[in-house]
């Protein structure tokens, strides 16, 4: 099973986020995480929401903005080897539907979290910093940009 056996799509990673059912699975995943955290008996509701927000943003940062390349060899001799998954999505075309969805979901999660933590100051600071780590890499101006040489190769 190699890339390019059944289709001429050079990098299948570009289409994964817009496949059928991916958005639903993503939302269900967030829901599952939230329910698991809610089942821990000694954690309060604001804490659970902050934890959900933090863990979601951390996983999103790791999977979309840290891991580079493809888990399989592509026939284009590795053009995407230094690109994160976010940069590979839709071959770098900005403002596609999946990109908008993945930008809006952390924002909505942040709004819900702010509500459920009753706008407490400490929670606010933590959640905002976490949201920024996930929103800033998604800006089109930061496409392919590596700050301070982190994660360059």
């Amino acid at each position: 099973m190699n890339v390019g056996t059944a289709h001429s799509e050079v990098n299948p990673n570009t289409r994964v986020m817009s496949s059928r059912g991916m958005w639903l699975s993503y939302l269900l995943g967030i829901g599952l995480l939230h329910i698991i955290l809610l089942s821990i008996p000694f954690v309060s509701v604001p804490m659970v929401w902050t934890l959900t927000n933090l863990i979601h943003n951390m996983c999103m940062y790791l999977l979309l903005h840290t891991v580079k390349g493809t888990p399989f060899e592509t026939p284009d001799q590795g053009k995407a080897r230094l690109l994160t998954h976010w940069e590979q999505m839709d071959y770098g075309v900005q403002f596609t539907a999946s990109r908008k969805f993945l930008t809006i979901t952390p924002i909505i999660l942040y709004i819900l979290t702010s509500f459920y933590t009753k706008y407490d100051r400490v929670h606010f600071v933590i959640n905002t910093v976490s949201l920024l780590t996930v929103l800033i890499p998604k800006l089109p101006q930061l496409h392919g940009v590596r700050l301070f040489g982190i994660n360059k190769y």
Partner: protein
Amino acid sequence: SFGLDKQPKTLYLSDLQVHHGSCNGGLYSRPFIESFEETPMLVAVLTYMGYGILTIFGYLRDFLRARKIEKCHIAREREEQKDFVPLYQDFENFYTRNLYMRIRDNWNRPICSVPADKVDLVERVSYDYNWTFSHTGRVVKDVINMGSYNYLGFSENKGSCADAVAEVTLKYGAGVGSTRQEMGNLDGHEELEKLVARFLGVESAMAFGMGFATNSMNIPALAGKGCLILSDELNHASLVLGARLSGSTIRVFKHNNMQSLEKLLRDAIVHGQPRTHRPWKKILILVEGIYSMEGSIIRLPEVIALKKKYKAYLYLDEAHSIGALGGRGRGVVDYFGLDPTDVDIMMGTFTKSFGAAGGYIGGKKELIDYLRSHSHSAVYATSMSPPVVEQIITSMKCIMGEDGTTIGKKRIQQLAENTVYFRRRLREMGFIIYGNNDSPVVPLMVYMPAKIGAFGREMLKRNIGVVVVGFPATPIIESRARFCVSAAHTKEMLDQALSAISEVGDLLQLKYSRHRILPTLDRPFDETTYEECED
């Protein structure tokens, strides 16, 4: 002249995407029924979950291997080179290490008999989870072969073809030892090319030793810089490679979608080349007759109408359709009842229906004469070996009926019957089958990564050999098992295979089809205008 019916009579069932034919003004002489049922949402979510769990475990195992807690079977760089810049990116092998290795026993199975309707497999066993295999010494006999491209059943070691081949091997030997342009042009090659030209109904043809190389070596000779290649989304790797090697601009249109192709043609002609806006030197449309992973048949009447209107060239790759479609076995052109001279370049392979190896290109005499001197394959590649040439000549004569028997005609009919029967039974059982009703390639959707491996293994337990394929060769939620119906299969074999498939389908819960027939709605397409055919 064409019928100028502006309202296409396509009935478009939105959910199931079933296209019922006789659309577009009577271009089709027979109903064109194909279906590509969408993945059920629950199945898609579970598939992503499956891949997610496999990825998490993959990372865990990689971590254990890095910390030397688990033994690492895969080749790595030497300890002394630890500080060097790495040669390979180990993430690129992630999929192979952690997903493919788990179910690797479904591929590369060694066979030890001729791959006819039944085949013998060498029994393999693995004691370290598919990292290494050892042969037990036993042979699994008489496995029903649903994986070989043996559409007309010419893959056999007895019969008139085999006798003729044996004779020719004794006379000419097995090898040629030269290219076509030097000492490798045998009288068998000349006879073969004339026969192929007669078979296809074209002026002239040329044969090459390898089917893949026919595409990848000849498209660069036909198109170059300043040309435009319009290639279908699901074209085979050989066509994609040939297009890339040629250096032309490549634009991809949606699979079998004539509106997408027409839009690309119009944009190309209106805007010309990207920056200079000069007209394109030529526009070449690359399509296949039958797409082997989808089982769909190209909408050839519409493509030819478009090509005539916009004055583009058509390259038709009939690798899977030659011999397998059409009342006389002449391929997809015969299937639709069209004129072979409408297709500028007819390419095909001898691997599938003729039981041999190699490819051919047929077309006008000037084109083939040009290819004889300009094709890489003709100049540098060794020509076809004599036994293979004889096999093709004998099998082609058999299909045409020129050997005096009706074996060819019977096989074509048997294949058509087998195809219709097999597809109908699978659909009735409730599986999701892709493709056209008349295509002998039957992809059965399996979707989930674990079911890919399970399906292959369970079918082998029931003595049926199938080909399964998954991500990244297919889109992530469209893993499938592909059956190739053959004229050599008798109805009993097909029934046996079908009952095994049904059993495995119940065991693995593969019967996803919802068979929801919605009331038909006449959905107006963006019109394709096929008039202006100046005769």
